[in-house]
């Protein structure tokens, strides 16, 4: 070959060029470099601290000195199943379930509209409306809800203007969920939970619905399915992974939250509050750790059941 012939490789120079050339030739090295930092984070900092916490639940506290006894025991778990603690668990479970179901019912139509009908400007407006509440402080939102739900609040005022005070009173008179006012009742806690976690249900549901091709819905109608049947047999099953993803958020966030029930609601404890009090003022780290195991076990069971029911078949 003559010296004047052009080489097929371009002249290369500089450290950055040579580095990228080296990484091009060794894709495994690139993958390692990309994955090691997050894996270290996930493995040591994240999972490590979680396991350290879980390990605490197998220790016990000395009732007289208040010191932790570092010997393996299941006595903390025995304590967890005492009636008062069981009460907290059941209360949190019922609340989380109610909030999750309600966010599916409220969130699905919104997600459906956004995925199937909203275009361009409307879609941008949808995202703004869903995300906007997430931009403001969580505490501010919860306190404003306390004002909205209070006896002197806007809901009572509207009820008065519409001559519907009797209805509000009737709702508040319902045993268990009612109370002296909405801001001091389970119903109020429920409403605030629903408001705060709703975006976490809408967004994954909308993403799942977006991926359902329009021609599947046409095909279903073409084969003789009326809209209700199409919804049950095509749209809902295909959106289910998104709904499950959303319900993981709403369910676990409700299970773990300790601020909302403290500000809006009755004085009875939810899981998060129990953990907060036990590790703080009470200093009972083992029992607090045992309490944190509860939502993890519940979520594990929930996902297992969802998988068994075929919720992830469409993934």
């Amino acid at each position: 070959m003559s010296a004047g012939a052009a080489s097929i490789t371009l002249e290369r120079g500089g450290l950055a060029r040579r580095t990228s050339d080296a990484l091009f030739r060794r894709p495994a090295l690139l993958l390692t470099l990309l994955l090691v930092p997050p894996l270290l984070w996930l493995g040591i900092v994240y999972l490590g601290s979680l396991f350290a916490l879980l390990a605490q639940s197998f220790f016990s506290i000395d009732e007289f000195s208040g010191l932790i006894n570092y010997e393996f025991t299941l006595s903390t778990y025995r304590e967890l199943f005492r009636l008062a603690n069981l009460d907290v668990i059941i209360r949190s479970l019922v609340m989380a379930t109610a909030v999750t179901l309600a966010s599916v019912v409220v969130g699905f139509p919104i997600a459906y509209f956004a995925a199937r009908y909203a275009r361009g400007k409307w879609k941008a407006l949808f995202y703004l409306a869903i995300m906007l509440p997430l931009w403001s402080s969580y505490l501010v939102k919860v306190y404003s809800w306390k004002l909205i739900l209070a006896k002197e609040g806007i809901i009572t005022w509207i009820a008065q203007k519409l001559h519907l005070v009797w209805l509000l009173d009737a709702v508040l008179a319902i045993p268990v969920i009612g109370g002296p006012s909405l801001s001091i009742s389970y119903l109020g806690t429920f409403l605030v939970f629903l408001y705060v976690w709703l975006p976490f249900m809408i967004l994954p549901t909308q993403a799942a619905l977006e991926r359902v091709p329009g021609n599947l819905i046409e095909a279903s109608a073409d084969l003789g399915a009326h809209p209700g049947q199409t919804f049950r047999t095509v749209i809902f099953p295909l959106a289910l992974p998104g709904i499950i993803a959303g319900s993981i958020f709403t369910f676990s966030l409700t299970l773990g939250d300790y601020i909302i029930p403290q500000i809006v609601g009755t004085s009875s404890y939810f899981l998060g509050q129990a953990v907060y009090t036990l590790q703080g003022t009470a200093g009972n780290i083992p029992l607090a750790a045992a309490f944190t195991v509860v939502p993890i076990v519940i979520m594990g069971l929930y996902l297992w059941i969802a998988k068994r029911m075929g919720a992830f078949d469409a993934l």
Partner: protein
Amino acid sequence: MTTAVRFQRVSRHFGTVRAVDDVTLDIAEGEFFAMLGPSGSGKTTCLRLIAGFEQPTSGHIEIFGETAEGVPPYRRNVNTVFQDYALFPHMNVLDNVGYGLMVRGVSKAQRDKRSLEALALVELAGFEARRPGQLSGGQRQRVALARALVNEPKVLLLDEPLGALDLKLREQMQVELKTLQRNLGITFVFVTHDQGEALSMADRVAIFNEGKIVQVGVPEDIYERPRRRFVADFVGSSNVLTPDFSARTGGPHKWASLRPEKIDIWREETLPDATVRHCEAKVISVHYQGAVTRIATQAGGQLLSATIPSGSAKVSPGDIVTLAWPAGALHVMEDEA
């Protein structure tokens, strides 16, 4: 003969776009009817009007004598094979095929029996338990076909069903679809942009352009006797002769079509008699296509292409040749001169 589908002055407008513009059409029962045209010509919208996914802006549609306007797709005894098959990804092949029966409340046992028969019909026995994602393009196409046929539709609509298949499979499916249609006697309405497909399969072909039907007829008519320049050009890429060129070579002063395969390269010393028309032309390019060679030439301002058996003449770009064709090969069209 019963009319399966009747369009009376049907239009479908989307805003200012006239997707379907004043179409009048009759499709007979048991017919294999092809709608052929370039993309955006309105053929798919016509299909969607029959299926019920679109409602006409104006005009009247009848399916087996019954008014179709306002009838939703799920109450029409018409089924569609979609372009990309639209199989339900969360159901196996058997449930996909049995879907139409399931929503009509047919019992599980009956449904499975008929679905298996439909799968056997499209030669997919043994694939019941697979998911659509585990099938090849050709197999999915067959599942889509079985899923439509199991409902015993009065009209089967096919929206470019072979478009996603490779050539070999497409040719095989063309033969199978035609055989299937003949055996079942169901009216097939087939949308395609592939003229070869339309001509080889259909009993009658409608040529669409810009929302209108340009010509309807049996394949021979469409191919041999195009009524418009558009048809001549679109179906098999005929030579469209300008009125001036047509007159100069001894024809009438009208737009005319001349099939490339009718043109020969004249190599004798003496010029042919009056029954043979001829002209001098300059060769622009030569395309070897296997059995035939396509030669593009220019005669004055007129482009002419000729297909001749490969090896019958040695020509190269830049040569001046004499093109000749029988006077009867010229087909005069209806376009204004």
